[in-house]
């Protein structure tokens, strides 16, 4: 078993990046995720693994440093919270267009605008539907525990490189700030230059005489060429949809009703499930772990077994659209949410199930 620690979610992200063999982190401080860079600065990973940690002058600079470094095939990561992630959207779209792997961590806070520094899930649409311009998708992972904050960093790097696409970890202020037991995976050594070059023939690693220039760009002024780029991207997204879906179910075998929730909301729903079952309500939980790819088929299958679903989110109703697209209109699907940094309590979720789904 790996090393056991009590850590904040943000610290777990930072430690996991070092252990995953990350080459560079570029970031700019913002609550509630500042501990990511604080931990990295204190830990001095340059001395441990040679990893670079750099405070950029802004989020726009961070994402463009990421873009440049990713182009050389390096394993790179940034983290921010909602307003900072909004500033990064142009760079994310460019990276998706140029097919570059990178990990972007969003520890979401309440919005819109500067909003609040308390936890929220209101950036679901931005993460899943493409916050930047153009037809692109990011792989989006939604950790629900500090353990997953750690494990998802490793997974996000694996998927980002497997598909040459940016991957996002969509967390929230509560999971970033809370401490839980975490079992750290054993450190993976950073790739050597030779390994990097052989594993990533697409990367701009310096031109030897034996090959042509490598050009990394998201620009193709010829519409036919740009359409080919788009077709290639769409084929890649279909492959991701087919192969990389992750989800978790709890208490679904005898369930008449279902909570659908991701991240922190899913943790709250687990408690609500216990409270509801104590009252004799047979309710289960479906937790998408990948938000893109969304577990469409699995949701559709479970939709045939239950009478109704309550989608619980810390937003005004975002993932519910994907739930409805997956399940269809045959059963009642309603949303319950709190916004702006308010976290729903397990009791109010049970009450919402009773009033909106069972009695509604």
């Amino acid at each position, binding site marked *: 078993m790996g090393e056991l620690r009590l850590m904040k979610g943000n610290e777990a992200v930072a430690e996991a990046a070092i252990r995953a063999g990350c080459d560079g982190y570029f970031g700019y401080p913002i609550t509630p995720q500042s501990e990511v860079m604080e931990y990295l600065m204190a830990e001095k990973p340059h001395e441990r693994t040679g990893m670079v940690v750099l405070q950029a002058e802004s989020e726009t600079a961070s994402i463009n440093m990421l873009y440049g470094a990713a182009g050389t095939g390096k394993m790179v990561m940034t983290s921010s919270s909602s307003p900072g992630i909004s500033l990064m959207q142009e760079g994310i779209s460019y990276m998706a267009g140029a097919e570059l792997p990178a990990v972007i961590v969003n520890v979401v806070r309440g919005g819109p605008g500067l909003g609040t*520094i308390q936890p929220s899930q209101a950036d679901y649409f931005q993460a899943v539907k493409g916050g930047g311009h153009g037809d692109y998708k990011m792989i989006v992972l939604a950790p629900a525990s500090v353990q997953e904050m750690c494990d998802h960093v490793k997974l996000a790097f694996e998927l980002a490189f497997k598909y040459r696409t940016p991957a996002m970890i969509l967390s929230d202020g509560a999971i970033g700030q809370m401490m839980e037991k975490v079992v750290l995976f054993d450190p993976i050594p950073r790739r050597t230059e030779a390994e990097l070059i052989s594993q990533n023939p697409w990367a701009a690693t310096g031109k030897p005489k034996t090959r042509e220039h490598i050009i990394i760009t998201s620009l193709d002024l010829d519409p036919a060429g740009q359409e080919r780029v788009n077709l290639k991207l769409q084929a890649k997204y279909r492959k991701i949809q087919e192969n990389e879906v992750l989800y978790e179910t709890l208490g679904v075998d005898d369930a008449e009703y279902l909570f659908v929730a991701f991240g922190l909301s899913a943790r709250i729903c687990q408690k609500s499930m216990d409270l509801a079952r104590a009252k004799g309500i047979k309710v289960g939980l479906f937790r998408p772990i990948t938000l893109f790819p969304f577990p469409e088929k699995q949701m559709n299958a479970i939709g045939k077994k239950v009478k109704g679903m309550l989608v619980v989110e810390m937003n005004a109703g975002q993932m519910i659209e994907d739930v409805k697209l997956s399940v269809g209109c045959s059963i009642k699907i309603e949303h319950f949410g709190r916004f702006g940094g308010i976290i729903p*309590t397990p009791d109010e979720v049970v009450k919402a199930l009773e009033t909106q789904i069972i009695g509604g």
Partner: protein
Amino acid sequence: MTEEIIIAGFGGQGVLSMGKILAYSGVMQNKEVSWMPSYGPEMRGGTANVTVIVSDERISSPILNSFDTAIILNQQSLDKFEKAVKPGGLLIYDPNGLTRLPERKDINIYSIAAADEASKLGLSKIFNMIVLGGFLKLKPLVQPEYIHKGLEKSLPARHHKLIPENEKAIDIGKSLIKAVHLIN
């Protein structure tokens, strides 16, 4: 076994670190734990609180609206969390600075004069460990050897020389706590 605890007081009383030491001790004893602090604007109001859950099972919600135990270290926290103790639950308070005492009749209430004791000993920094000792007397969730390991893990190495003092404070707390109202 699952114990859901809220620890609440002023910033600077060591509320968050008390929770961290309890949680880390739980980790060392191979329990599941979660530690969820108040942060941001709540903290800037001068109050600090942390929800600590120690369990033998996977922990569901780290955010709770009712608790098995409330450890209350100032008036605002008493006003906010007295009503959040589950019926039959436990409330521990330090009377220092309280203008109104707890009134619930359906919970067990204990008092611990930790602030007075710490100031008598001239050791205001171990105030929170006296309170933790009182709690552990009533709910021995983690064994002393694991508290020792929890302290080692929670405190930076340069403060490890203070561990014996912290452990002594926990023992003081165990003898200092006294019942105010018991339900049976």
